[in-house]
């Protein structure tokens, strides 16, 4: 499955407090959460992001709190995939669990700039920076997690198993 979109680029150690500050955690409605994504860091994000856009981060993306509200807000805002140099552990599993695709590639992140047009194949892990004409290969996803993605998230995976 290939996704293509315009890039929103972020730096290293983007923590979940920055992705969605705690003052917005008093609700669980995904649409409201999405409207608060990156509220302080990039107030234009939730307004200007388009469905299918790609988020690119540096290392340790999603560090800090376990709040699932963070990947939920990003997914609901319209982001189709996050590409980062590395992900913090809890954010990584939360993303798989809620069905938000994520890919790890240091080289791709170093090449990609804000507003670049990028495509990503979620099955093979191939990332193409169309603006620059460069190709990259993301780190392979463990088999178990591939199963979770194929099921459409952890809830569906568990339902199948039961």
């Amino acid at each position, binding site marked *: 499955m290939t996704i293509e979109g315009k890039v929103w680029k972020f730096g290293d150690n983007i923590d979940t*407090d*920055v992705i969605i500050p705690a003052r917005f955690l008093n609700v669980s409605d995904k649409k409201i959460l999405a409207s608060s994504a990156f509220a302080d860091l990039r107030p234009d994000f939730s307004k200007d992001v388009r469905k299918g856009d790609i988020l690119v981060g540096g290392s340790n993306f999603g560090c800090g709190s376990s709040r*699932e*509200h963070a*990947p939920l807000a990003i997914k609901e805002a319209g982001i189709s995939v996050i590409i980062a140099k590395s992900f913090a552990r809890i954010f990584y599993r939360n993303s798989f669990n809620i069905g938000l695709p994520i890919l790890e590639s240091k080289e791709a992140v170093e090449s990609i700039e804000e507003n670049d047009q990028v495509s990503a194949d979620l099955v093979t892990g191939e990332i193409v920076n169309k603006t620059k004409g460069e190709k990259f290969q993301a780190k392979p996803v463990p088999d178990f997690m591939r199963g979770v993605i194929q099921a459409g998230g952890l809830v569906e995976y568990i339902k199948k198993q039961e």
Partner: protein
Amino acid sequence: MGMTITEKILAAHSGNDVVRPGDILQADVDMALANDVTAPLAIKVFEEIGKENVFNRDKIALVPDHFVPNKDIPSARQAKMMREFAAKYGIKNYFEVGQMGVEHVILPEKGLVIPGDLVIGADSHTCTYGALGAFSTGVGSTDLGVIMATGRVWLKVPPTIKVIFEGAFNPWVCGKDLILYLLGVMGVEGANYCAIEFMGSAVKKLTIDQRMTMSNMAIECGAKNGVFEADEITLNYVKERSTRKPLVIKPDPDAKYEREIHIDVSKIQPQVAFPHSPDNVRPVSEGKDVKIDQVFIGSCTNGRLEDLRIAAGLMKGKSVAKGVRVIVIPGSQLIYKEAIREGIIDAFLDAGATIGPPTCGPCLGGHMGILAEGERCASTSNRNFIGRMGDPKSEVYLVSPAVAAASAVLGRIGLPEEI
């Protein structure tokens, strides 16, 4: 080849004789935890799965602590949803306002976690219980919802980093300084996906309260968990609180570690993490020019009785510096009561501090001490990310209870010797 503490606990909970880093396994959960921020999403997931009952009503703990007593109408709705869920499914360990406290303070205090347990919580600081020789880690709400339905969790076995603390403590140096120092050494990503084993003669002397401060902040370098070997101190702590039989797990002599880090405690002075990252640490002596507007003493890191005792001991008979607000939040109802009995609360009040009800309070910018633009807070909590305690242009300096108390009196970051 032998196993580390973490590997042994994961093996015992997944029906395996041996597990190795990288193995993915399904483990049985002894205690599943959620709070008023993470439970509502987990409840939705549980309902979506469609099970008639939770896996075990005695093995789930629901603690409203982040935004309670309710700070606004949406928070009140979330707390209500959790309360109604707890009542509907007969959740035994639901702690209402009046019994509640900060989740990671009250679970050990009530004997709900003992050595050898496997605890999963929808809160990143669930790693606190490593202090008791348990495996515990944080997950998101979907994982927690699935656990409430099935009692099981999928886990990847982490490689273990062994950190060995040796040497004598300098004056006023405590568990908080040790973990801040370690964060400076490792960096915020230094233990991502790894387990940490805290070893060495120096940490063997630490009380459970101080060990909990250290395990609590293992997540700040990305670790999955941070575990101590249970010993006499642990067993004494547990036997007053639980009738369950603790399982003391020691690492095998030939256990394989990803790496070993040796820390000479005698080289550590009281530490402060400057904004905006917990690994941005320096000795407190380098922070003396930092004027502060607020001091927060509390949280799942340092809201326990020993923490309050140290801070109150320093503030007794002194006054909070002019222009500084000092907010003290005991971590639990029991700690609050004991602090009153010991005269700790009197010492704080007489010095000009205010006391809040047992809750997370301003730690995560929820309520009871939000910072305005340009304001600085010396805080005993665990994170100082941008905007963590309020305005994105405010600043948080992470310190021990002793340094927080000294700073409250000085009106700037400072050492206990200075007051």
